[in-house]
């Protein structure tokens, strides 16, 4: 498989093959072409002379929680933006559910960017109306329930909310969809530890078993426990990907420790 080209081995000078985690190990056994949710082939993205992503090959299966890990500038956000359809100028092939990025894929992808995206005039009720109009998989009851749990007034202007509250609100909107693929860009970045628990809890309790969560983060120790699979991205290239238990077992260390080792400055 093509993704094997990018898979490298990291460890502490161990023999080749010890910690190697092939792409086939990422996939649950018995899955084939038809079981793929995301297929990325030869993806390269350049910003001027700088290469953000270099010949990335990746396959994601349904029903996985995938952690996209890497330092700042490693290309995580670029990869997520391409999948979400907010970057269109790239080389290579990207398909979700067998379709190129477009209206059909956007209908099954729920994307949480690393920035706020509401208009200044918007209130939660406006956002709910918009999601109801455009997303067939939007569960309004679930959304209102989550907002009540957060103690949010639907008539309060979003722009008057605190940063943490805004992030929680956006997450509620994103997780209120019964999407096939959730793309979450740094969902716990910039919030306090208590809020992190709320966010992780919201993510874990609001996605269906056959959906895939593709999530980037710097705060590995906080979220390591929820991942099935991790992908290490370094300077635009996938340097490691695999089942989290396999990696832990083979490396004899946590993902957080491995991350610090791989991305040591």
């Amino acid at each position, binding site marked *: 498989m093509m993704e094997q080209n990018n898979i490298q081995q990291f460890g502490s000078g161990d023999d080749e093959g010890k910690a190697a985690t092939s792409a086939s190990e990422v996939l649950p056994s018995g899955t084939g072409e038809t079981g793929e949710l995301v297929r990325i082939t030869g993806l390269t993205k350049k910003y*001027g002379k700088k290469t953000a992503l270099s010949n990335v090959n990746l396959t994601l299966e349904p029903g996985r929680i995938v952690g996209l890990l890497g330092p700042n500038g490693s290309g995580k956000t670029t990869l997520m933006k391409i999948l979400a359809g907010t970057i*269109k*100028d790239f080389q290579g092939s990207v398909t979700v559910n067998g379709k190129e990025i477009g209206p059909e894929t956007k209908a099954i992808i729920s994307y949480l960017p690393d920035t706020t995206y509401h208009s200044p005039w918007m209130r939660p009720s406006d956002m709910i109306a918009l999601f109801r109009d*455009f997303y067939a998989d939007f569960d309004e009851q679930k959304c209102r329930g989550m907002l009540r749990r957060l103690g949010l007034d639907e008539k309060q202007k979003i722009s008057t909310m605190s940063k943490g509250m805004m992030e929680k609100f956006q997450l509620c909107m994103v997780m209120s969809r019964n999407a096939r693929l959730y793309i979450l860009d740094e969902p716990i970045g910039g919030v306090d530890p208590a809020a992190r628990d709320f966010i992780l809890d919201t993510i874990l309790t609001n996605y269906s078993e056959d959906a895939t969560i593709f999530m980037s983060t710097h705060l590995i120790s906080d979220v390591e426990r929820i991942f099935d699979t991790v992908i290490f991205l370094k300077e635009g290239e996938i340097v490691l990907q695999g089942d989290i238990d396999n990696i832990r077992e083979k490396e004899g260390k946590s993902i957080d420790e491995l991350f610090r080792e791989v991305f040591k400055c």
Partner: protein
Amino acid sequence: MLGKLIKHDIRSTWRDFAGIYLTILLGMIFLPLLLNFVNRAITNIIAGFLVMGIMVSTIVIMIIMLFKIFNTNIFSNEGYLTMTLPVRGSELVVSKLVVSTMWIVLTGIVSVLGILIFLWIISPMTDILPVLMKVLYYFEAKEYLAIILIFIAVVAEILNEVAKLFLACSVANLKLLGRFRIPLGILSFFALSWLENKIIQAASFITGRLHWVDMFADEFKIEVNLMLRPEGILQMTDLVNMAMVQWILCSLAFTAVFSVGTVWLLNHKLELD
């Protein structure tokens, strides 16, 4: 989805325009009352400046609002919401074209209404309405058609200019142009206008024998002058109607070309920060 997009675009912009309309109308009602205390000659000068001021400020506000409707909604942070909606790029562009044009037409109507209110208050022309009614009485189907065609032509021209502005905005957001992208975006608007004129001129030349009406040619002006005689008025209506149909077709064709360009850029070159 197009209907939902139009609904959402109206919902996101109506507050700004309602404020503008309210300001224009209230200003036009209260200003004449203040001017009643001023010398009549000065009143006329102020009224002239005021009308000009309204026209200029309306144009400036329009450009800002169009920028907001398209540029902010697509290329700023709001783009993360807009560009991840499960809709086609063409639907997004058409929706914004329709809503922008609708607001421009409405602003024009409110501005004219405001100016009429202003003039009516400072100098009531009670005899103008019967005169107007008398003129309309003599109008025939052709004249009414001319009025309708002129209105459609103006709307089509607005669509054309808005589509051109959207394309220029998209060029100004092309990351591959680097730090020159904003000046190049502005320049592209004027370059597109120049190109448009050249194409119209070429089309006029090529189709000259097919009774194409070149409204900017000297022959057209001479012909219009001849028709301004009472016996030529019906003939002039025909000419105007034909010219308007051509103008509408041209505007719609250019709107389509500019919109296709914008959609292509959104579908192939979009890069949100």
